[in-house]
């Protein structure tokens, strides 16, 4: 098994955090059989207050992104982008599982997530956990987040805005920067959907 060079891993993290490139990025070596250093299984708590593991949806393609329910901009835009991609895929899109991992576990309880998820007619699994659990998942996917005080009772959370595409075997296949078009996301989804589980 080949391990990715350390500098490459650092560069990936920086690229994800900045999220400035227009082209989709192929996770290096993502088609290899095992890449435990980037991505991988995890367990969090869903909006029904049940434990949810990525393994639970093995056999189905997964779109995953990090966000928080009071996000004023990136999260609604990301969901709109995912919605656009799923509609382009058509009927097979019903196989796709979309995961929203909260990077604001302090405020995003399962009940808050459930309320938020009701706003979307696109099926969406909201995930939260302890601060440590969320931090571990974010770290595994080279995602970053940081609380920003606004001088009001509210606060913002700067966070990685990439969309992660995970294949039927639970492998991270590709990630998409925030300004990637739904067409590119749809094309990658179709490729993964066409693969047998």
């Amino acid at each position, binding site marked *: 098994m080949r391990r990715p060079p350390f500098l490459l891993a650092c560069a990936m993290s920086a690229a994800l955090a900045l999220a400035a490139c227009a082209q989709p990025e192929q996770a290096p070596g993502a088609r290899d059989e095992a890449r435990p250093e980037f991505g991988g299984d995890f367990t969090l708590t869903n909006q029904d207050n049940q434990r949810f593991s990525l393994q639970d949806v093995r056999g189905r393609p997964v779109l995953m992104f990090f966000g928080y329910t009071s996000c*004023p901009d990136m999260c*609604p835009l990301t969901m709109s982008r995912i919605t656009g991609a799923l509609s382009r895929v058509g009927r097979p899109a019903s196989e796709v599982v979309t995961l929203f991992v909260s990077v604001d576990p302090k405020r995003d309880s399962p009940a808050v997530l459930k309320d*938020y998820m009701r*706003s979307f007619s696109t099926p969406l699994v909201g995930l939260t956990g302890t601060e440590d659990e969320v931090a571990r998942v974010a770290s595994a996917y080279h995602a970053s987040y940081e609380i920003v005080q606004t001088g009001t009772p509210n606060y913002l959370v700067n966070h990685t805005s990439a969309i992660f595409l995970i294949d039927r075997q639970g492998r991270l296949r590709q990630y998409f920067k925030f300004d990637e078009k739904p067409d590119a996301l749809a094309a990658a989804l179709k490729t993964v959907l066409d693969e047998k589980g």
Partner: protein
Amino acid sequence: MIRRASASLLLVLVSAAGAAACGDRAEERGRQLYALHGCAACHGVDGRGDGPSAKRLDVPPPNLSDVRTYKQGSAAADIAVSIRKGVGAMPAFRDITDDEAGDISAWIVSLQRERRSAGGQP
């Protein structure tokens, strides 16, 4: 002469009915797109600005049924531009197509109409 007038009247009625049906379809598509894109997260299911995210936003989302709350015009065309280009604290939803934005706007304008019919201000 009477026959020609009748034909003209029929044409007008059919056109009006067709336009109304088209409008209804656009509003229905808009209602579905509003839900699909999660506009309700901030604006609320009925567009009243009471979505689950609203209470923790520093700039509260407007009540879309109240034309007084609009900053860039409350007509359908203005709303479509606001959706695609952003307005105030709302980001630009560039992945929503012009047609989709038009349909969502049609539904939002129907909310304004319902409010007026119900005797709301204005």
